[in-house]
């Protein structure tokens, strides 16, 4: 395997069949999402129980248990907006090229899934530092007008979900994530272009 690539010739050989690929991607996305939500909930600054996250979302604990189950296949985009909102994080949805997907999907260790909630002071300080030409850490660029960017405009918007994670299997891999605003622990510079998170295929209609 060439140095630094998270896939090998042998690995690719095992997903050349499109049906195999579909199943593999679906499980990777669902499992990573389940791990991500759990990691965000258990992150040091939060240490929320499933019940507490449920209270913040207005849902019973049983719903949280279900969305943290990688075998649960019906997680909706609306629910993801609500989860992200409970953590005061934005949501990012994308259908990337495979190279990017391979690079991002393997980030499953809890320390790689840490995300800081919205903090105006921090963001303003970064903006001021950037204006003044001082280094402010890796700040990911956002592609204006992308579906993901529009989707990330918030859970309060009038977006509708026309599909769920369990449906419309991808021909392209999909990414979805709660976005870390400043690239903390993420190494964005490694990626050829904007890259965020994981989900299965979905269709988003922003009105």
């Amino acid at each position, binding site marked *: *395997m060439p140095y630094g690539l*998270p*896939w*090998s010739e*042998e*690995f690719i*050989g*095992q997903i050349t069949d499109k*049906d*195999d690929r579909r*199943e*593999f991607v679906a*499980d*990777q996305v669902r*499992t*990573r999402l*389940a*791990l991500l939500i*759990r990691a965000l909930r258990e992150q040091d600054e939060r240490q929320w129980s499933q019940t507490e996250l449920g209270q913040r979302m207005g849902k019973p604990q049983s719903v949280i248990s279900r969305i*943290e*189950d*990688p*075998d649960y296949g019906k997680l909706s985009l609306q629910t993801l907006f609500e989860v992200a909102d409970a953590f005061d994080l934005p949501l990012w949805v994308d259908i990337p090229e495979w190279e990017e997907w391979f690079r991002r*999907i*393997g*980030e*499953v*260790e*809890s320390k790689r899934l840490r995300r800081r909630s919205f903090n105006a002071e921090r963001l303003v300080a970064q903006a001021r530092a950037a204006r003044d030409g001082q280094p402010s850490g890796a700040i990911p660029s956002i592609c204006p007008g992308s579906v993901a960017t529009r989707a990330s405009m918030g859970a309060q918007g009038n977006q509708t979900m026309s599909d769920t994670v369990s449906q419309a299997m991808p021909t392209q891999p999909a990414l979805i994530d709660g976005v870390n605003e400043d690239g903390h622990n993420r190494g964005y510079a490694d990626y050829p272009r904007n890259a965020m998170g994981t989900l299965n295929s979905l269709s988003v209609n922003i009105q």
Partner: protein
Amino acid sequence: MAVLWSFRCYLSPDGTDEIRKAHDSEERQTRKKFHSRLKILAALPFEEWHNGVLYRELHGECFGLGEIKFKGDNVQQRPLGFRSSEYEFAILFWAHERGNKWVPLKACQRALERKAEVIANKDRTNALWLALE
């Protein structure tokens, strides 16, 4: 992604990779979910295996074994194995679970017998045939 773990699979006395044989008899979804879950487990430190979502250590008559947990083709899939060295996990027996019962009923007993064989002779395992990166 850093691959921390390697997986090994039980070989019967005639050299058959019993895990691969069981895997190949499963439907596509189960096969690819198995591949996917091993890829994820391979990237996680052992303390993060322990949350009971992807993996669970067993007790009682199954003490000394752990189960990789996933649902494939509407069946609870339970490949059983043990941590054979610091960053190596040996898969011994592909069991299923239905209604809180093992299928086959003696899955743990058979896995424990295989574990004893593997501990006595490490040649009774094969490196996992699936590439994880």
